[in-house]
């Protein structure tokens, strides 16, 4: 029935499915991407070790659920390359120590750790985050590893290219016009593979993308623009890898449709009107908080019982 039968294997499957997108992202934007992902992954491991230590739960038990791997990867891929290292660490600590272990460990958190961590950093330190060079800028690929290190450690001269005010890869409002992100295709591929293996539920990304495009149209964009919008930034990443996190999404089919439609609509709206370019992480976190109510209202009827009131 299910190819992937254990929880750690599910976590690792998500991590592996992220690879095609990550590799394409790295090829397009150079070593800075790899550095970012590497740092977040190591930080996630350290945060997990720390949690095992101060919560006094077994080290092996904590690490063995493997949930820190996708969290680390997702943080690395959604924070802007060349973000100062202390913000990377802060985001990871918020994600793993506060959001996940603070709630009692894997499965207990109500908001997606990576998105929560990202949101705190984005809201609290916009000035530190946003002047970071844009991930969309083609010159990023020319930054070599040494330069990238200097930039994230904030030592040595500030990298000053014609950095346009922009944000993390999850955001898309930059002035440079449309350039296809190769990673979009990788995420799509990985996401579809996860759906085929029944690790994620396909209805979430499909509904999210559809709702996002429709919202953009409803808000006055042209169809062409709205559909192109789907190929931007991390929308595909969010649709297939973030909104589908089972821990923080509803447990019924109808619930998942509502949840995904809400996220899609919020992303569309925030992108159109919002102050925060990081529409995605805010949309996801908000809808995560609605999940408990969605679940309560959408309980299916029980066999032999009258349809459930609630």
């Amino acid at each position, binding site marked *: 029935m299910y190819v992937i039968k254990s929880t750690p294997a599910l976590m690792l499957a998500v991590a592996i499915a992220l690879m095609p997108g990550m590799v394409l992202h790295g090829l397009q934007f150079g070593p800075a991407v790899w550095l970012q992902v590497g740092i977040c992954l190591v930080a996630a491991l350290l945060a997990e070790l720390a949690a095992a230590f101060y919560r006094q739960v077994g080290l092996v038990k904590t690490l063995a659920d493997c949930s820190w791997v996708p969290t680390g990867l997702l943080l690395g891929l959604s924070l802007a390359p060349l973000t100062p290292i202390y913000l990377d660490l802060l985001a990871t600590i918020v994600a793993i120590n506060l959001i996940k272990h603070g709630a009692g460990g894997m499965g207990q958190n109500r908001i997606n750790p990576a998105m929560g961590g990202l949101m705190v950093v984005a809201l609290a330190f916009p000035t530190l985050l946003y002047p970071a060079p844009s991930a969309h800028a083609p010159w990023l690929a020319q930054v070599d590893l040494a330069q990238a290190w200097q930039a994230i450690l904030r030592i040595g001269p500030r990298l000053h290219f014609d950095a346009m005010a922009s944000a993390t890869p999850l955001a898309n409002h930059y002035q440079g016009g449309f350039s296809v992100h190769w990673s979009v295709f990788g995420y799509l591929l990985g996401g579809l593979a996860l759906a085929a293996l029944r690790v994620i539920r396909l209805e979430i990304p499909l509904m999210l993308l559809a709702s996002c495009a429709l919202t953009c149209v409803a808000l006055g964009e042209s169809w062409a623009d709205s559909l192109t919008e789907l190929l931007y930034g991390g929308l595909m990443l969010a649709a297939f890898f973030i909104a589908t996190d089972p821990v923080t999404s509803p447990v019924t089919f109808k619930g998942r449709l509502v949840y995904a439609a809400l996220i899609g609509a919020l992303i569309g709206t925030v992108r159109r009107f919002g102050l925060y370019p990081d529409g995605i992480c805010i949309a996801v976190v908000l809808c995560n908080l609605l999940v408990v109510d969605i*679940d309560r209202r959408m309980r299916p009827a029980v*066999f032999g019982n009258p349809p459930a009131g609630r």
Partner: protein
Amino acid sequence: MQLNAEQSVRPVLSWLKQRVSVRDTQIESWRGGVHLPDQKHLSNRRHIRHAPLPRMLCVPLGWNGREAQPVVVPGQRVLKGQAIASGVGTAVWVHAPTSGIVKRIMPVPVAPGTQMPTCIVIESDGEDEWGMLEPLAREETSIDTLSAFLMQKGLVGLGGAGFPTGLKLKGGDRTIDTLVVNGAECEPFITCDDRLMRERALSVLQGVQVLANTLQVDRVRIGIEDNKPTAIRRMQEACAQIHSNIEVVEIPTRYPAGSLRHLVKALTGRTIPEGALPAAIGVTALNVATAFAVGQAVLEGRPLISRIVTVTGLCERPGNFEVPIGMGVRQLIGLALPQPDARGVHVGGPMMGESLAHRMSVVAKTTSCLIVGARSLLPPRPEPTPCIRCSRCADACPVGLQPMELFRASSNDNRPLLATLKINSCIECGACSYVCPSNIPLRDTFRQQKRAQAKR
């Protein structure tokens, strides 16, 4: 041959539907359930063999506190089929499985070994001499008469919990218009009903007809899972042979297709309301082996003194045995030649059954299957990890419960929430535990929770 478009698209559609977790309620009469590796091939290839008479038989007088009163004393000689305990109230009568001397009356563990009802110990004299057999006079067809007769012949449901068949027939006030016969046998490993239908199809149908005539139903449907094509064919042939209008219905193989509510739903389209008996919707349901035993009792006067038990797993000669009630489980297993390194025995199916808790247990009327080598065939699940709300359990639950929520509520012993979530509708089928990637013992938790609530 022309392949029609719909046929070629259907598998693709159903594959897709699984991925987006839409349930196909049009071809399925109920939602959820799981496909299990059925392991039936181990034991369904050999004919039913008669277990040789053991020297000692410990015949249980009942279970769950429902016990018959002994009417024999130690030292007395009894004949095969002679009543040795009389039913009072809801207990059925008990009969000697062979002729011999009553040795003792004492508590003995009964498979799976969690209960020790009083048993009458009979030492066989090897003669296997029948006592008088009194069939039911054929003209007599009132439900009350049949019901009392079946109580006297010791008839209980052979498929599951062993509810007295006589009581089941009495039912309620509503007229019964449909008889549902359960030949689904949806648990893996078990093949006793399969072999019974293959080898004694006519006798099964005779029993069914007796019931149908007495209950005066309009419709009789026998549901058999489609993983038993031979049994289906034999039963259909037998129906044609006796020109009966009994319908043999092939149902898709999906656990728990043999659950009472699900089979009734699949065969009649009616839903048994929660907390009600099938009689409430005009249905009586029983198992094929029970129907066979009813036929034997009514037409030949034979009381229920033996049953077919599947002995399977790590054995040289697994298969089905006609076993006298009260035979030692270990002796029975010996007949299938267990492999020397086989460890552990499981009683019943792997999903609903339990492991053998007492080596000296005896076969009861409800013992359907013994799985030898359970320790390697049905290894315990690894340590549970936290729930990740993947909702596989909810997709698998055949009654539409939300096991992940039930589990959380059980852990907090939140009774009001458990009631809202309808924990009492749980049929303890274990489909949820089976699919859980975190190895959470969901079913066992619910079972304990229900028992704890019932106690209070």
